[in-house]
């Protein structure tokens, strides 16, 4: 399968020209079927909690209620006229539940990142060795370059040294050494993917399929 797709890239003739897209559609369809297994796992796990009177049974009940309510609202398009509209049109139950629960939960979870960024900087950015120091200095300059404080601190520099003004230096770091590092990483990744894909296609790496009988 993998080989066919690799060669298809070089064959513009029908039916190979659209093979990549077809496979993506295939994947989407298989994923929906697989969800029945995943959803089943969710139902069974939490159902079990309730059945065995596990200490978390009330939490499991909440999860199950949310899951079934959302499925009911979405699959039957409750609160919506007819079957044709998009499932998330305004006014439908599905959409209301989404805005009242899903949306705030999601954005709050995302917003927690701001706190974790702070605690990570406190904990991890310590000049323990040369690598860590470089990491720290680069981060510090870029951070400083994005606040007015950095401009105040280095405003006195003459034009001929303007590159050392913090905001300029931050831009330079972003566009030169940062770019170089990114490219090395990205090229490395590409080679890694090529090699892994070949191993998978050639059957050298089969552990993912559970036939690791070496």
């Amino acid at each position, binding site marked *: 399968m993998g080989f066919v797709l690799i060669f298809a890239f070089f064959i513009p003739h029908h039916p190979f020209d659209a093979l990549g897209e077809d496979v993506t559609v295939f994947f989407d369809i298989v994923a929906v079927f697989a969800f029945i297994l995943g959803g*089943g796992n969710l139902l069974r796990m939490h159902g079990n909690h309730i059945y065995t009177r596990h200490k978390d049974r009330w939490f499991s009940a909440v*999860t199950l209620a949310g899951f079934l*309510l959302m499925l009911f609202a979405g699959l039957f398009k409750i609160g919506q006229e007819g079957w044709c509209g998009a499932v998330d049109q305004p006014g439908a139950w599905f959409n209301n539940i989404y805005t009242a629960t*899903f*949306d705030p939960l*999601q954005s709050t979870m995302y917003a927690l990142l701001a706190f974790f960024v702070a605690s990570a900087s406190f904990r991890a950015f310590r000049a323990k060795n040369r690598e860590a120091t470089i990491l720290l200095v680069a981060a510090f300059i870029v951070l400083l370059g994005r606040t007015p404080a950095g401009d105040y601190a280095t405003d006195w520099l003459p034009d001929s040294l303007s590159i050392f003004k913090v905001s300029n230096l931050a831009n330079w770091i972003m566009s030169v050494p940062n770019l170089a590092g990114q490219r*090395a990483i990205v090229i490395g990744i590409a080679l890694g993917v090529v090699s892994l894909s070949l191993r998978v296609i050639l059957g050298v790496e089969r552990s993912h399929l559970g036939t690791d009988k070496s």
Partner: protein
Amino acid sequence: MNVSDWLALQVAALLTLGIVSFLYKDNPIYKICESIFLGVSAGYWFTVLFWENMVPKLYENISQAGSRPYTEAGVPSLLYVVALILGIMMLLRLFPKLGWMSRWPLSVVVGATAGLWFITYMQSNALSQLRATLLPILDFQAMDAATGTGLSGWFNKYLGNLVILVGTSTGLCYFYFSKEHKGVFGGLARVGIYFLMVTFGASFGYTVMSRMSLLLGRIDFMISEWWPSLFSGWS
């Protein structure tokens, strides 16, 4: 604001506070929020997958209700029947005796993924990045156009391309597997690590601001939408 909108706002605010309480410590309120989140989001995604994938991509293609390219000829596309069969094979896992059949769709998926990404990565990562890095060490033509005077001008003129070239190559040295990081090669690899560290530090510093604005958005919601609603009630 009507009653249901008002209630939805209160629910949203309570959930927001519940999640934030995790920062202090794990607690039952967080656990309730987590449970709601799990249930609702799993239901949400299944519903979306069903209406976005199952109906238009499978049902409409096979039943010819849609107007996808492969059904234009008037023949229900065999390709999609294959997809249906693969999907059903997936479900056979539910029956222990037939469970082995589910490996088929898995192999197809894994093989196809490997093939597709082989090409994509080769093209968009390796080749195009390499091409972008093909730079003259010193571009004497462009030098007159470079901006800045004194040391800054010198920086802009001479250092940019050289640093990019050195950084990219030494970075690749760091990833080189066949040679121990010793001697001259070890030195190169070390320079490579330094470049990677600058990259990580810089991107970390760069993302901090956008993370902060997410938090601002949440706080803004609590202050300007929820807090006034407590006093105004509904109408």
